[in-house]
């Protein structure tokens, strides 16, 4: 029985793993020793059996070709899916940008300050320049505004005067806003007209009970 070292040497010899000097030494020992030669033969026999095993593990050419084709099909399918995924991601990103742009624009549009149209106000007629005017030739219900020396409109600057037939101011109602003064003047004017209708007989009172 050879030593472990000699067995390993012979294995390396058959594996072409020895240096030229080592190959020469082994060849010389083989020539000189029948035991070494017999061991080498046994090792070769075992290798042939194993070679048969390796060969039996190999698929046929047809099997290998079928396998290769399935691998290639799978890779091509994966490549197609990657491309579709890339296109989908690109499309989603573009759609998201568009939606964000639209949403942001809508949001900003909604928060823009409303275009305030100037009120269609009829500029009141400046008749008096003092606040204590008691005599006036104004038509009842006419709106006046009183400005101070600086031409500013103080609080209650819009005044509606109630006057008699002689034009004497019977009462003055002050308003801060022109619209309020206009509404009051309109109502006052309707009341004055109705009274005149009654006085002129245009309206017949059915009852004085209300």
């Amino acid at each position, binding site marked *: 029985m050879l030593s*472990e070292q000699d*067995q*390993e040497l012979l*294995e*390396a010899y*058959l*594996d*072409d*793993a020895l240096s030229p000097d080592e190959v020469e030494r082994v060849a010389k020992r083989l020539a000189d020793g029948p035991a070494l030669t017999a061991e080498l033969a046994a*090792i*070769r*026999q*075992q*290798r*042939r*059996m*194993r*070679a*048969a*095993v*390796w*060969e*039996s*593990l*190999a*698929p*046929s*050419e047809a*099997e*290998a*070709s079928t*396998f*290769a084709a*399935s*691998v*290639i099909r*799978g*890779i091509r399918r*994966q*490549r197609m899916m990657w491309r579709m995924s890339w296109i989908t991601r690109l499309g989603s990103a573009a759609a998201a940008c568009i939606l964000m742009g639209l949403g942001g624009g809508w949001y900003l549009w909604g928060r823009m300050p409303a275009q305030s149209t100037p009120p269609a106000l009829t500029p009141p007629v400046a008749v008096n320049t003092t606040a204590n005017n008691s005599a006036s030739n104004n038509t009842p219900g006419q709106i006046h505004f009183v400005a101070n020396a600086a031409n500013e409109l103080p609080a209650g600057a819009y005044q509606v005067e109630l006057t008699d037939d002689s034009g004497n101011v019977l009462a003055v109602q002050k308003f801060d806003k022109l619209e309020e003064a206009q509404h009051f003047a309109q109502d006052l004017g309707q009341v004055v007209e109705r009274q005149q209708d009654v006085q002129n007989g245009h309206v017949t009172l059915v009852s004085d009970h209300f």
Partner: protein
Amino acid sequence: MSLEEGAEIDRLFERAVQTHSRRLLTVARGIVGTRASPEDVVQQALTNLYEHRTRYDWRDPGGLLRRSVVNESLRILRRPRMGSVGEEQPGRSESPLGGMIDRETVAQVRAAIDRLPENFRAALVLCEYENMAYTQIAEALNATIPQVKTWIHRARRQLAQMLGDLKPDAVAHPSAKE
């Protein structure tokens, strides 16, 4: 990378798969035995390579493919065991070497090889089937040359002990070294 370069890489990759599949399946079968499907191992190894295909030179991919299959085979073996894939390994049904070694002998030797530790088995497959040098095997298995020598030697010793006096009925024509 341009579209033309990408298409060329894809073409070279597919050609490599067609050229080397048979050999890669044999290597995978030799290493994983009945513990995993060799087809799954090779397919996974090729898929992994394809995902990073731009990194490699596909004009001579033999060593790359082999190393990838070996790594995937060993990775599979080191997972928690799920049990044997099958009782018998698939492969060619006819007797190898032109019927000069009977199928029963082949089955016994194959079973003995399957019982070797995974590193022993991997080193033996790469040495005797792929005819790789010890330095190449060391690189493929991420080991040192002395480790590879030890693994191969111990694999052969264990097989000799397991198989005892098993002899083939006949022998094939010896090679130049044999």
